[in-house]
């Protein structure tokens, strides 16, 4: 033990070889994190899903929705068709006035309320109007409450059908199905939880307005209070059946705002009931659009599903009307009918019936199963314990680099006065002989040639600079969320061009800082301070990524990957081709580069030139209505500041005529030559 400690302390003292390890270790961490993710789809690392909560008993009951209910359903569809008005032409080329639209809106809500009332339920409606990017989103939510014959009204389940689904298609069959289910459920006496039937005009603003008002966290100036409420919401199931013909499979959407996920038990229940009891196939993450549809269990399609799931989680936008519920810790999923098959609307209704019966059994809120998981097939998942290390390892890579640079910044390397001239001659002779000799040389013969003289770290300038850059990153965030749609394109074009040149401006300004006497701390930075700036910036990046990984794993993972170049680019005093290459690399892996890539993709592959504006608008809407902060904060407040610092450091290569001898990077060179 003592021997080991001695050898370690001898190593620690002044062996420059130790200082060469961290960059490789950091690269290894990043590589390890990526490989880890790629391994997940294998059978050895993922698990079969299972039901944890025994009370659910999925598929254990007979379902009776069918028979004459089908006629009722058709009648409702006919009745609703009379009030859909211009909304039925989803193409949107019929321009109608605001007033006319409002008339139709009112007619629809009156009609739906009437249908609910005829089924014997209490109903109410709620007006809302949101403003984001200068656009107004308004409508009327209609809902009905079925009071549980066997309950005390303290718990409730929500069934939701939007008039238009997330793709803005008209939910032709879904809404009549919801109303016929309401009429059908009313006749049963076995409900022990209230059931709320909710019809929202759209899939993004309406559910949010309703759920906010249900929990009284809404802004009463824009969103109306709910006049009718029930108990604590246990779960929500959304029905989306946007055509009139029969369907083939059910697509289950489960991701919520900010990457929150419903309890895996709810998802499992839906899958078990649909495929086990009803014989309807299920898919997730648009698996039906894959080229190779039949082999969902093959590695490539599992990986594709995994990555799509992660991308959707990272974006943190709504993927269906269920997404808004997740903010309030209410487990929710959307079932969408897809494809052309032989399943009719009654089969869909029976699936919903069976899910409601299962949820009706619950004795407590769903809590048994996982809240953090990645699905790669509708019956295979990986849990947080298996996948979290990958994001953490990537975040750790930045921290390792930060510690390494911190150590470098604290010492200045000096050449030791050469004691043994003979040793040096021998060494230069060896260098020619090649590597074979290196192995045979005993390690402890080594006596350090370089000397470290400790330096006082001057932290004021690096900390001030970083704080200023991070605070400045709030400006684009503010602009994104408050500008109107007209102003967004030009402003963000200007901002994007500005961020490309900002590092160069900063880099040229830093060495020019006056050596004034009032603030001696803020003088032109020394080489060590440049290293410190990078160290602290990477430390912050690693810190933010770690925190983000606990809140939204996927976002942290993606940000960690796009930031990789930042950890490895460095100043190359004297300029030269290397720094130009590094700057170009950084430009590609930058928020601006991402935006440009997105715009180019939209232009060349979809043929639209407003893809970027669309996305900005979506992000702004997410921020204003859903409070979806992930991507705006992640990109503008974590990635952008770190990128500007990294790019500035690269750009300083062109503006300083630094003496390499004083640069801590010289350690590398010296130690390399020493070991050889």
């Amino acid at each position, binding site marked *: 033990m003592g021997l080991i400690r001695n050898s370690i*302390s001898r190593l620690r003292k002044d062996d420059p070889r130790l200082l060469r390890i961290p960059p490789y270790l950091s690269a290894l961490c990043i590589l390890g994190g990526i490989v880890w993710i790629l391994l997940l789809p294998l059978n050895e690392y993922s698990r079969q899903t299972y039901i944890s909560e025994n009370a659910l008993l999925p598929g254990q009951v007979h379902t009776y929705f069918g028979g004459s209910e089908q006629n009722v359903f058709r009648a409702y569809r006919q009745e609703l068709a009379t009030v859909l008005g211009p909304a039925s032409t989803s193409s949107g080329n019929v321009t109608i006035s605001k007033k006319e639209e409002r008339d139709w809106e009112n007619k629809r809500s009156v009609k739906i309320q009437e249908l609910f009332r005829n089924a014997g339920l209490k109903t109410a409606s709620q007006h809302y109007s949101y403003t984001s990017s200068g656009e107004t989103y308004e409508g009327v939510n209609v809902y009905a409450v079925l009071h549980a014959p066997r309950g005390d009204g303290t718990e409730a389940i929500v069934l939701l059908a939007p008039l238009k689904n997330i793709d803005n298609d008209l939910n032709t069959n879904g809404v009549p199905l919801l109303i016929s289910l309401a009429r059908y459920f009313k006749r049963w006496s076995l409900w022990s939880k209230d059931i709320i039937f909710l019809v929202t005009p759209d899939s993004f603003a309406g559910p949010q307005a309703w759920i906010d008002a249900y929990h009284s966290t809404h802004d009463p100036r824009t969103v109306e209070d709910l006049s009718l409420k029930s108990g604590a919401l246990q779960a929500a199931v959304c029905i989306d059946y946007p055509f009139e013909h029969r369907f083939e499979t059910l697509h289950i959407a489960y991701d919520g705002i900010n990457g*929150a996920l419903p309890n895996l038990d709810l998802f499992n229940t839906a899958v078990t009931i649909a495929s086990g009891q009803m014989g309807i196939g299920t898919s997730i993450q648009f698996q039906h659009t894959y080229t190779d549809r039949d082999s969902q269990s093959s590695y490539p399609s599992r990986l594709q599903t995994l990555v799509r799931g992660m991308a959707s989680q990272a974006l943190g936008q709504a993927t269906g009307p269920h997404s808004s519920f997740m903010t309030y*810790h209410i487990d929710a999923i959307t079932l969408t009918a897809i494809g052309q098959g032989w399943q009719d609307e009654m089969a869909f209704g029976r699936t919903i019936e069976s899910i409601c019966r299962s949820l009706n059994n619950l004795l407590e809120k769903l809590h048994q199963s996982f*809240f*953090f998981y990645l699905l790669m097939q509708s019956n295979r998942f990986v849990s947080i314990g298996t996948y979290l290390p990958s994001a953490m390892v990537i975040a750790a890579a930045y*921290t390792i680099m930060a*510690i390494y640079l*911190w150590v470098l910044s604290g010492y200045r390397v000096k050449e030791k006065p050469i004691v043994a001239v003979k040793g040096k001659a021998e060494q230069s002779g060896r260098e020619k002989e090649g590597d074979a000799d290196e192995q045979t040389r005993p390690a402890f013969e080594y006596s350090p040639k370089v000397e470290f003289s*400790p330096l*006082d770290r001057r932290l004021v300038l690096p900390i001030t600079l970083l704080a200023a850059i991070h605070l400045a990153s709030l400006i684009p965030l503010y602009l994104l969320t408050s500008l109107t749609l007209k102003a967004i394109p030009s402003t963000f074009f200007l901002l994007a061009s500005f961020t490309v040149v900002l590092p160069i401006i900063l880099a040229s300004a830093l060495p020019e800082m006056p050596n004034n006497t*009032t603030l001696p701390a803020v003088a032109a930075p020394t080489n060590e301070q440049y290293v410190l700036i990078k160290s602290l910036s990477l*430390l912050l990046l690693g*810190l*933010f990524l*770690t*925190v983000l990984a*606990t*809140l939204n794993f996927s976002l942290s993972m993606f940000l960690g990957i796009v930031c990789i170049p930042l950890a490895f680019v460095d100043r190359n005093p004297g300029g030269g081709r290397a720094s130009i290459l590094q700057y170009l690399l950084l430009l590609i892996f930058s928020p601006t580069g991402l935006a440009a890539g997105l715009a180019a993709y939209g232009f060349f592959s979809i043929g639209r030139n407003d893809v970027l504006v669309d996305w900005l608008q979506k992000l702004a809407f997410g921020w204003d209505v859903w409070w979806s902060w992930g991507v705006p904060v992640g990109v503008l407040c974590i990635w952008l500041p770190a990128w500007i610092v990294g790019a500035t450091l690269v750009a300083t290569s062109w503006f300083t005529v630094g003496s390499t001898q004083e640069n801590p990077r010289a350690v590398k060179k010296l130690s390399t030559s020493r070991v050889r």
Partner: protein
Amino acid sequence: MAISLDRKTAAIYAGAALLRLLVLVAFPDLSDFLGEQVEISTPISSFKRLQEGLFLYQHGLSPYDGGVYHQAPLLLVIFEILPSALVFVALDLSNAASLHMIAEGLHLPTPRFRKLDGSIIAAAYLFNPFTILSCLGKSTSIFTNTAIIQAVLNAQSGNAFRAMFSLAIGTYLSMYPGLLLPPTLLMILKNKSQSTAGPILIMSYLGALAALLSATLVLTDGFWDFISSCYGAQLTVTDLTPNVGLWWYFFIEIFDSFRDFFIGVFWLHLAGYVGGLTLRLQDQPLFVITSLLGLFAIFKPYPSIADVSLYLGFLPMYSHILPLTRYTFIAASVLLYSTLLGPAFYHLWIYAGSGNANFFYAITLVWSLGLTILVGDTLFAVLRDEWEIERPEMRGKSVRQI
């Protein structure tokens, strides 16, 4: 001793005041939001609870009815008269000014020590994010902090009785400053211009405390209510609302039959450092106080970041020992990580529902670990500094504990 008002000093103070007032005016909701964060306001320092007490008090009821208010009644009188925002900003500024004066008057018997620039110390206190957050979150710990800083300032400048009175106010407000009596006395007695004897000082401290307590009789008729809900709550830790400390989780989990015993153990642990540190570091009473403040921020029943901000307010006066410390980077990173992970895990536990109490408790452990490293490391550095004065030939050589 007055602060020389040059442009830099004026800029620092004006900037800090402007920053606080601007945020308070521009984002009125932010103050309420911060005031609800468990890291900032604890049961004994929450402004929201104070408002509840104030409401009862103004309506002629005992402020301790309802068991929400655990603070001293003197605070009620202050907030009855003065607007809260101004009080908090003014106290922050006066604390900074006091630290400024302490730093200007500080002289330490070590060759490493260089004369401190008080305005830098004040800036370090005023622009410390923890100070800003606890000021905006209106944590009433700041009154105790002011009392402690005043005690130290007066002890240093030789106003023995004022120091004792300040310490008595601190003790009256939240009890634990009473533990600072030995180092403060030491500080006063070491002052050469001082001639008052120790026992008289102790008597004056006790007298001041008694006077403050009896003043309570005038303010509120339920004296025993006050004693039990102000001091009893701290002694027996009745309110187990989560905070950054180590007590709440432990006393949630513990079986009731062991509760009294472990409360004794925890308090003994908190008090145990006073004697040892005061004896060992006799020559540097200010450092004893600084270290004790760090330890209180870790081990007291209801710690918050306001306590840490006080510790970090004193610590920069010992910047000369920075070259001797070994783990500052680790301590700083650990504190940074836990500062951000703490609210994230609390959110996962309380709001998202996907985490549980262990998440947050684990982070409070890490936070305490970070502070412990900091306290331990600075203690090491000061001892090493003393040792190097004794044995100048060992300067710069590495030592190993055997």
